[in-house]
């Protein structure tokens, strides 16, 4: 998780890839870096409205960005520059979780299948010449190189909207236990507001609906019908 590129040049000792045991004073540097990375990652997550589960991609992209941004500590050069002795490719900079369309794989599609999948950009993966994408419909995470980016469009809905979709406005029919709860509430309100409170009984309630289907029944015992069928 911690950027290896950064460490090689930020540290006075060459490449401390192994720490000496029982030297907590070396932790401070790690903790400080950790804080920096998480600050950037949090900003990415908040801006994109992505759920927290995507933290690993945000951290990954944060490290990618930090390594390619110049810092006064390195004489206004980027860590990438010091390691590879070349400028980082600015074209690779994409907005975290921005809208993009990835081409579908040609061998997997027929003539009438969609040509692209609607995705959002998550990060680059080391060792791959492509970007990690999140398919907004199938919720699949995959790597693709044939992508058209639409930076500045953040397709992921903000959390408040999502919650509204998740909880339908109408709840299922109430059960018996909640009707007495409602009765208690009404009585409490009626008492405080000095309301009138009356009750009614409906006679033969179930006989009132209009029958639309054909329903037949056997004559109850003791009833004589003039027509036998």
């Amino acid at each position: 998780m911690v950027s290896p590129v950064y460490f090689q040049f930020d540290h006075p000792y060459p490449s401390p890839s192994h720490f000496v045991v029982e030297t907590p004073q070396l932790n401070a540097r790690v903790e400080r870096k950790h804080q920096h990375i998480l600050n950037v990652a949090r900003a990415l997550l908040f801006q994109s409205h992505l759920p927290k589960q995507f933290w690993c991609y945000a951290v990954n992209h944060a490290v990618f960005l930090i390594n390619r941004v110049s810092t006064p500590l390195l004489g206004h050069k980027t860590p990438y520059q010091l390691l590879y002795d070349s400028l980082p490719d600015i074209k690779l900079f994409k907005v975290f979780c921005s809208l993009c369309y990835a081409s579908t794989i040609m061998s997997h599609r027929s003539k009438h299948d969609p040509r692209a999948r609607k995705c959002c950009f998550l990060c680059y993966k080391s060792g791959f010449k492509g970007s990690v994408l999140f398919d907004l419909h199938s919720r699949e995470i995959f790597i693709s190189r044939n992508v058209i980016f639409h930076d500045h469009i953040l397709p992921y809905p903000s959390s408040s909207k999502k919650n509204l979709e998740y909880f339908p406005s109408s709840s299922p029919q109430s059960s018996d236990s909640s009707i007495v709860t409602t009765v208690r509430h009404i009585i409490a309100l009626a008492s405080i507001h000095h309301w009138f409170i009356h009750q009614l009984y409906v006679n033969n309630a179930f006989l009132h609906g209009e029958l639309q289907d054909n329903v037949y029944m056997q004559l109850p015992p003791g009833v004589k019908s003039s027509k036998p069928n």
Partner: protein
Amino acid sequence: MCKLIKYLYGLKQASRKWYEKLTSLLLAQGFKQANSDHSLFIKSSSSSFTILLVYVDDIILAGNSLDEFQNIKTILHNSFKIKDPGQLKYFLGLEVAHSKQGISLCQRKYCLDLLADSGFRNSKLVSTPSDPSIKLHNDSSPLYEDISSYRRLIGRLLYLNTTRPDIIFVTQQLSQFLTKPTQTHYTAAMRVLRYLKSCPGKGLFFPRDSTLKLLGFSDAD
């Protein structure tokens, strides 16, 4: 065989059809169905506020305008024929008493019926619902022989919880053992009944002078 032309009691669709018909009538009268409880209908205007609660064929009307009450009663009577006993007194086993100080709610009759059905007419009384020295848990003692009667009893205690907050804790404890009740659990349930016998008419009181404030409480952990 005969063909039905109207709904009868016992027909599967009857309750649903009745509910549909009543709902459409109330909506046409300007009532709004509440989202949180579908049996609750609310009608508010600048001059009046009326709440209507339906439980199958029992209806409660609450509000500040008797004219509106009369209006609804006439409409319902024209469509269905209703009985109008006036002020709310008895609804789903809840006894309601009105006074100048407030409204009280109890389940005295329900409680006495429960005691009578359990044969508790002549038993000794206790002053607390549970014995503090006994902790209920899944013990290995022999199962209580009539499991379904234990479950029935707990079910009735649960309904009694509506107006009896004093037995809520012990009912919750007892209802954890519905699958495997033992003699210990049954004895504890019997103690609840003996406690209920000491005060069957206890209930809730809603004073008129209390304020409409929502208060929340939570325990420390």
